[in-house]
């Protein structure tokens, strides 16, 4: 299945409002270590942030904009969000701003109050400019392993009941699944379960934190190979997508020609309840275990461009060890700049965390298996034309 195109990918500025640091859930793998009920964004901070951004068309000169709303759980602040979105729309119109009619509002939600009347009213009002992803992790067993209420109760049932409504409003909606060490045995059944729920695109990734145990990579590979077999045997490859399988991953990268940074931190902008700007939400204090927040400005004084320079100057090789630079399967090995910063032995964004290394290599092996098996099947069935494969030289 061809991956769905991201709206205005590369041409849009991402601006994230951290509207609350509260959430109904306390997911075990959540990187937000500082969630709390106190830090809710005041309207005045949101308004100042919007005015600052819309005033400065020289700095914010992208063709389009995506306003992300995150938490915690963003829909806990639906009244504020509704007010923010109305203000943005009015201002874009009043200022004859280039982003008028070239904007989107984007949400990642736990889906618990998706059916709520106010949320539904907001969705209907903004549907044409809206993207919403509901996070559901897979089977009830897998989902409830991590995604639990403060009481300890699992949240699967409360989320799953809203999936049909969500898919009706957002046909082709994608979900995001997170894998930590205890989740590995559930990967195959979980992805298939999500497909069975009608979700055709499953974006799934291993956490970047150093949580992996001995043997996890082997188990992970087994799960992915089992999933590959199922997808191929059930002929889901033409209609469903699982981001673990991507043909471009697992190749060596050129030091000079393929030296780009992976992460978009610094290209985007996040603002929190106190009015501080961050290069991405992962640099706000509630996301960091061991480091100080990386503040790059505030809504009153604006962005300090010097604080952004290290992010925009980042490249792959400068932050990587020689082992990573010369790795034969390095393409597709992702990193999160915020996790790199948090895990680094000095307060720098220039030290790449390699906690995910063995998991990436396991993924590459399973991914190779998937494509080899799929292409062989298509070859023997004569349906290969629609698929391209990287050309490999024959040895003899």
């Amino acid at each position, binding site marked *: 299945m061809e991956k769905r195109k991201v709206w205005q990918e590369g041409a849009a500025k991402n601006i994230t409002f951290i509207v609350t640091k509260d959430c109904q859930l306390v997911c075990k793998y959540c990187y937000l270590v500082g969630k709390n009920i106190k830090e809710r964004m005041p309207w005045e901070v949101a308004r100042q942030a919007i005015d600052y951004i819309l005033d400065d068309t020289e700095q914010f000169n992208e063709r389009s904009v995506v306003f992300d709303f995150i938490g915690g759980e963003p829909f806990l602040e639906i009244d504020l969000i509704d007010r923010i979105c109305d203000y943005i729309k009015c201002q874009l119109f009043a200022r004859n701003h280039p982003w008028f009619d070239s904007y989107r509002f984007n949400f990642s939600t736990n889906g618990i109050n998706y059916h709520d009347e106010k949320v539904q009213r907001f969705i209907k009002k903004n549907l044409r400019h809206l993207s919403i992803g509901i996070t559901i992790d897979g089977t009830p067993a897998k989902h409830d392993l991590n995604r639990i209420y403060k009481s300890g109760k699992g949240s699967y049932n409360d989320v799953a009941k809203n999936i049909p409504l969500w898919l009706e409003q957002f046909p082709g909606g994608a979900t995001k699944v997170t894998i930590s060490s205890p989740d590995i045995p559930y990967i195959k059944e979980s992805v298939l379960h999500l497909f069975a729920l009608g979700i055709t695109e499953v974006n799934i990734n291993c956490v970047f934190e150093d949580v992996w145990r001995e043997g996890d990579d082997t188990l992970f590979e087994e799960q992915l190979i089992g999933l590959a077999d199922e997808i191929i045997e059930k002929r889901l490859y033409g209609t469903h997508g699982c981001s673990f399988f991507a043909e471009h991953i697992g190749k060596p990268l050129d030091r000079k020609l393929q030296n780009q940074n992976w992460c978009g931190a610094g290209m985007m902008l996040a603002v929190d309840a106190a009015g501080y700007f961050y290069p991405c939400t992962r640099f706000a204090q509630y996301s960091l275990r061991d480091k100080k927040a990386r503040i790059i400005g505030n809504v009153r004084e604006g962005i300090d461009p010097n604080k952004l*320079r*290290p992010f925009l100057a980042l490249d792959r090789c400068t932050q990587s060890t020689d082992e990573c630079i010369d790795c034969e399967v390095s393409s597709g090995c992702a990193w999160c700049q915020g996790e790199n910063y948090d895990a680094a032995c000095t307060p720098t964004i*220039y030290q790449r965390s390699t906690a995910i290394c063995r998991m990436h290599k396991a993924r590459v092996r399973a991914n190779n298996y998937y494509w080899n098996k799929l292409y062989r099947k298509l070859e023997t069935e004569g349906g290969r034309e629609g698929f391209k494969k990287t050309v490999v030289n024959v040895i003899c």
Partner: protein
Amino acid sequence: MLQYLIILLDDTSVSFCHYRNTNSNRRLIALDGLKAGILFAMKHNLMVQFVYPDYELPESYATVIESIDHHKIKPFSLKEDASVVVYDYREAVSDQTLNRNEKTTLVLRITKDELFSGYEEVIHFLKRSNRLSLVITDTDTFRKEDFDTYKKVLSHLESAIPEALKENDDMPQLNILSDRIQLEKMNNCNAGVENITLAPNGKFYVCPAFYIEDENDSAGNPAEGITISNRQLYTLAYAPVCRKCDAYHCKRCIWLNKKTTLEVNTPSHEQCVTAHLERNASRNLLNELHAKGFFPNKEIREITCLDPFEWKE
């Protein structure tokens, strides 16, 4: 490769660089600490640079200091037998004893306001010195209008060098103008890579500024060696903005980097632009010197961009 050991003899030792030392409480390095530093330098083939406070040291210290080849960096008030004398603007204006036969290097720490309003005094000072190292202590506060003014001031300073040449056989060196002409590659401060600082508390620091700013930010000691985490980030190869730059004379002050951008390997816009204004002024000076037959084989190419960050690969 490590080449220099800077030893701060006292907490009130004079600043010879961008940082301000506002300490007024004396804390002299322990004699054993001083000896340990000297022993470390001897074992690692390091040239020692002692940085003095503004008071006379006990005789026992002088004896130990003289036990190794070294340079003395001293404040103006104690300038006798110094290799490097550090002035502030007021002292530079008042010192009428200088003459160009003295081979001492002079460091003039000056604010932008002092330089912009008093550049003629600086020229006068330059003409009486053999080598003058100008350190603008507040480059991080430069705004656009300051860059414009600095460009004009550089133009005045640039004219002074050929004038001084007329009056003497050799040319006075002014770091921000003449260094770039002579250099073939980057020659930055290289704190943490080519030099390390021993503080009065007996511990190593990346540079004196790191000690002054945060005593807890130490980097080893003479007994256990140097322990700088992520040390590669202090090298040019790991500085994406700097490694393709040709403002070879730029201090590339990693303390200022850290202060302004929060990363030791990334310079601020202000540091880049001031260095490039100096680079371009050096180019103008070189063209003038070419006409007088000096440096016939040297060339500095013309560039239009003042911040290499803007032409990142």
